[in-house]
């Protein structure tokens, strides 16, 4: 359960990146977040895993007010969330395999468990043959798929994906969205920020639409600009 109550986010004094955003996403929902470039999608996602803190308002994850979580205990919140970053954020000095294994390693999983789960995630995104490459040595789309694999590998309760198919062709994008759908079917909440109108048409879900930091519409199957 993700709840926003009158959330403002101001990076610089003169303008708000988010203005009075309120919504709630039930456990197990599949939601698209859309809006023009600079509308505040990434900002909204960052607030959920507390990479940024709201200037005003409350954010509740599973009924817990995340404003109140101590920095030291943030990891507990974040272990429930799998994130595909818009800029991937892969560790450049580790291989694809190592990158995907990080969320499991930080949880102290056993080596054999890690291997099984990572190989599974790798085959889901079709990158088994790239497992020993470093991020710099694979294509943009391949990097994006590594980022997706890392987000889903530890079976989090919430998946946040920021433009997860920006570097993928239509076929692959559909496959990735199908994976998200399958994960969602297991009760995982999925929130995807995207511009891809084609995908939002193919996968008709609830759509949150931002414009200049304001939540201007919230509804199913709505046609995004």
């Amino acid at each position, binding site marked *: 359960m993700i709840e926003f109550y009158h959330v403002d986010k101001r990076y610089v004094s003169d303008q708000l990146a988010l203005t009075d955003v309120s919504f709630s996403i039930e456990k197990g929902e599949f939601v698209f977040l859309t809006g023009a470039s600079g509308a505040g999608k990434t900002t909204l996602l960052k607030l959920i895993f*507390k990479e940024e803190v709201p200037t005003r308002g409350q954010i509740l994850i599973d009924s817990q007010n995340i404003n109140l979580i101590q920095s*030291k205990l*943030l*990891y507990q919140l*974040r272990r429930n969330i799998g994130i595909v970053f818009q800029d991937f*954020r892969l560790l450049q000095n580790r291989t694809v395999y190592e990158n995907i294994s*990080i969320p499991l390693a*930080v*949880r*102290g999983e056993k080596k054999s468990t890690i291997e099984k789960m990572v190989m599974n995630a790798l085959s889901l995104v079709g990158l088994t043959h790239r497992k020993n490459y470093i991020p710099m040595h694979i294509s943009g789309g391949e990097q994006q798929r590594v980022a997706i694999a890392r987000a889903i590998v530890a079976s989090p309760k919430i998946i946040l994906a920021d433009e997860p198919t920006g570097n993928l062709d239509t076929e692959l994008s559909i496959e990735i969205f199908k994976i998200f759908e399958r994960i969602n079917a297991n009760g995982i909440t999925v929130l995807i920020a995207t511009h891809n109108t084609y995908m939002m048409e193919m996968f008709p879900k609830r759509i949150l639409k931002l414009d200049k930091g304001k939540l201007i519409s919230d509804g199913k199957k709505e046609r995004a600009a």
Partner: protein
Amino acid sequence: MNLLKITASNAFINIARNKLISFLCFGIIAFTLLIFGIFNYITFSLESFSETFTKNITAIFYLREGVKPAQIDELTNHIRENLMVKNVAFTSKSQAEIDFSRNFKDLSYILSEFKESPFPASIEIEFKPEYAMDTKVISLIEEIEKWSIIDSKEVNLDWAKKLIAFKKFIYVVGMFLSLILIFVSVFIIFNVIKINIFYRKEEIHVLRLVGATDWYIKFPFVIEGAILGFFGSLLAGALLFITLKLFPVYATFMYNLVKGMIDFKTIPSVIFLRLIGLGTAIGLFSSYFSSRQFLKN
């Protein structure tokens, strides 16, 4: 225990992942500590060198003519009471004559011209080595000189004073420089490790975002710092050894005189241990404090 093993091996992997930078940090740590080691060694050497100047300090007091045995006993007993004195020896006029003729057999015919021994009686004081450079020795000598039975003395107080000052100077300078050097070493190594961690702040940030605890992130850095410090100081020790091996060659080349004056071959193991301890500790704490800074959100 198992976690420690995994983290340690992770730290090694991390070092391997950032080969060039780890190598540069390692080099800087080693060279910084090399200077520290050399300095320690120099201080150590200069101190023992200045001691060779001052071993077996003796003072000879010549007595006036016609001094009574009681007076002599009084003085020798007085001297003997002093804790700094190792030995007091009285040489009578006749004993001095005998000594002379024993040492210079060829000249003993000269003595036959004298009715009485021409040599004055004397008291020779040997000081304990540990007081050899003490200013109190000087005041004792000056005090004895004032006794009425003393005619003259044979001891170069001027040199002794200068040498005492010199030894103290070496000691004070040594202490002072060691302090500065520890400070500078800590500063340099701390900063290098901070740079190392600074450039990996993105990595730290990502680790936090995927749910790593602070200790999970910090621990490998701390171990990494300790490893770099440890091996850095090991290299510093080795370099110190080589440097000191090399020095006599250089010294011989420059001045044959200096060669052999100090034994440059053995590094006192205390300096070696000090190096390793310092290196590892700085590396460890530097990493600890530097990584903390990047664990804000």
